[in-house]
């Protein structure tokens, strides 16, 4: 027994010594760079691992360490940036980009881009989301717009043959799709699900010419034109009682409520398609472009980019990884999952997303979508909006007053924080 302990100790010491040596003397040791992001589903993760393996085979002296942060992603990244322990490459949501671009923690990427990378192939609006003062700070990895998802079984039962094309039509359809089978006065299925959050409602503000913020980045959504679009949603919820929030029907999200058949329509993004197919295989649904409001098409677009940490010790290696992941080949091999649409026009065309009946409405939206982004004040504006919009939705106060209050609160906070 004693002998064994001695032997184990020796072995441990040996390992310790040898590992120390390999760290200090071997200059050809592979560099390790960290890539942080979130993970929406296991398949996505598998595909990304595959692409990273390809990258490591091509660049044997670079090792990529993947790190998945699923909860409060941006809070974690911001805190790590402050503590100077941030990853070399990380996912960056367009909505959070302005703060980081302004504070100078991101490495400008213009100097790294070579002509054969073909940056012009990207959707220009997506590239612009990560630009500040003419410098590019992140490369968009993919994007998604919002489209109208509708339950085809429910449509058939209600004798509706086509998805609504205008918001007025949608309001009518929602009435016909709301059913109360057990007659307890509470519908068992609502016409539509509503997510009372600014990212999902911003295009309603813009429908009648309202704006979210003014030139100085102060909130301005409470203008009569801004309120007019939002009022449509409030009317459906309060007057018609044909739409429901996820929590009204006991679901965690709009897409879950849609999948469970508790709402017949929902305005969702590409990420909902793999989710619905995996979680609710029996659900029959189709997608259409978001109905026109005020005779105009409108929707939201969400994009995520790869950003590089300015403090990174291996910037060239980090760029090589970004370059590979967003190259035509790299993007193609990982955009097949369908969680989002590829940001390169050539890849989108090659994968035929515009021909796929489920994805075509989402792809079409790219032309007229509002990108979910605004200045550094957006987090403040959003918190304030979300808070008051719900209260208007629940009928605690008229929408106009609620929005005015939200705008005033946001602007006071913006003013005081400057």
């Amino acid at each position, binding site marked *: 027994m004693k002998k064994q302990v001695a032997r184990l100790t020796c072995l441990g010491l040996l390992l310790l010594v040898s590992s120390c040596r390999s760290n200090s003397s071997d200059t050809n040791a592979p560099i390790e760079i960290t890539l942080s992001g979130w993970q929406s589903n296991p398949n996505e993760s598998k595909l990304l691992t595959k692409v990273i393996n390809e990258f490591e085979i091509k660049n044997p002296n670079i090792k990529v360490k993947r790190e998945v942060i699923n909860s*409060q992603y941006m*809070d974690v990244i*911001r*805190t790590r*940036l*402050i503590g100077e322990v941030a990853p070399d490459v990380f996912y960056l949501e367009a909505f959070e980009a302005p*703060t*980081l671009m*302004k*504070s*100078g*923690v991101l490495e400008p990427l213009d100097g790294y881009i070579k002509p054969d990378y073909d940056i012009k192939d990207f959707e220009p609006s997506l590239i612009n989301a990560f630009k500040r003062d003419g410098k590019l700070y992140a490369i968009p990895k993919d994007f998604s717009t919002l489209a109208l998802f509708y339950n085809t079984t429910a449509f058939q039962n209600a004798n509706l043959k086509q998805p609504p094309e205008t918001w007025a039509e949608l309001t009518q359809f929602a009435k016909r799709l709301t059913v109360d089978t057990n007659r307890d006065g509470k519908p068992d299925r609502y016409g539509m699900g509503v997510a009372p959050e600014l990212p999902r409602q911003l295009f309603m503000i813009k429908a009648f010419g309202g704006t979210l913020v003014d030139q100085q980045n102060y909130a301005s959504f409470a203008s009569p034109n801004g309120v007019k679009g939002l009022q449509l949603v409030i009317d459906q919820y309060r007057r018609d009682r044909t739409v429901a*929030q996820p*929590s*009204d*029907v*006991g679901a965690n999200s709009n897409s879950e409520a849609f999948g469970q058949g508790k709402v017949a329509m929902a305005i969702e993004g590409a990420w909902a398609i793999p989710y619905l197919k995996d979680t609710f295989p029996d659900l029959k649904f189709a997608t259409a472009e978001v109905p026109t409001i005020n005779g105009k098409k409108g929707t939201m677009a969400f994009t995520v980019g790869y950003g590089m940490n300015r403090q990174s010790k291996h910037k060239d290696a980090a760029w090589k990884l970004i370059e590979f992941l967003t190259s035509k080949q790299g993007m193609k091999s990982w955009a097949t999952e369908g969680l989002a649409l590829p940001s390169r026009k050539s890849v989108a065309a090659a994968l035929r997303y515009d021909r796929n009946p489920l994805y075509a409405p989402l792809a079409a939206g790219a032309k007229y979508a509002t990108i979910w982004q605004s200045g550094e004040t957006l*987090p*403040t504006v959003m*918190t304030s909006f*979300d*808070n*008051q919009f*719900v*209260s208007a939705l*629940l009928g*605690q106060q008229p929408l106009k007053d609620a929005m005015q209050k939200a705008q005033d*609160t946001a602007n*006071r*906070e913006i003013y*005081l*924080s400057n």
Partner: protein
Amino acid sequence: MLKSKFFNRRNVREALSGYLFMTPTIVVLGVFLALPVLYAIVLAFHKVNLLGDVSYRFTGLKNFVRMQDDERVWIALQNTVQYVAIVVPIQTLLALGLALTLNTKIRGRSWFRVAFFLPTVTSSAVLTLIFMWIYNSNGLLNSVLSFFSLPTYNWLGDPEVALKGIMIMNVWATAPLFMVIYLAALQDIPESLYEAAAIDGATTWEKFWHITLPFLRPVTFFVIVMGLIGTFQLFDQSYIFSNGSGGPNNATLTIVLLIYQYAFKNLDMGYALALTLMLAFVIMTATLVQRQFFGEESLD
């Protein structure tokens, strides 16, 4: 005489070796407790920029003046005070009631003690998730309510009841901890007092009112102060409940959640720390009021 004793070499040596023994604790506490507290107090008077180019700008009392105009601070304070005012008395009374029940010789009381204590040793994150299932619109609570033809609520989405939901959950989770403390204190009351009272012809109620309660007074003080501090610092439940937003319509916004939002969402550390100082001040005041109320002599 006294002076010479004080400077006695032996005494100095004794004191030195005493401090030497305490050094590890002093260093650890100093680095991880005293320094951060001092740093927090200093930073509360600055505008701090941590992201990118780190900079501190002295702003005097600006952070504290800003609080007065910040509507959300008042809402958060109101919510928190309402929460404290309802939760602390209920959980204290419940804990006392449970302890008194379990102190009698009922059958299977060790089993009851374990069952009652379980919620306290469960992680609050897990509890919150379980309760979110119970509070779901189609969940257990609404099913029970509708079975008895009582009104049902959207517990998670309705601002009117969201905070009450958290209150129920917290009372349920923390009362048992205080129950155990009461239970321990009840064992300390000498049986002879009850016997003497019985001989004098005291009723059960009189025994409780004149013997049990006065004996439990220091423990009650402890329980209430701990309850106050714990409830004033409510964070995780309302965070998970509202996904960090404090909604619906600020109904679950608490001071600590607001501090979190300013510190980590808006990266406004100076203001967040000013709010922290304010909260510390509020808790201290509440504790001092309690102390006045219970009287100092009961402490020993």
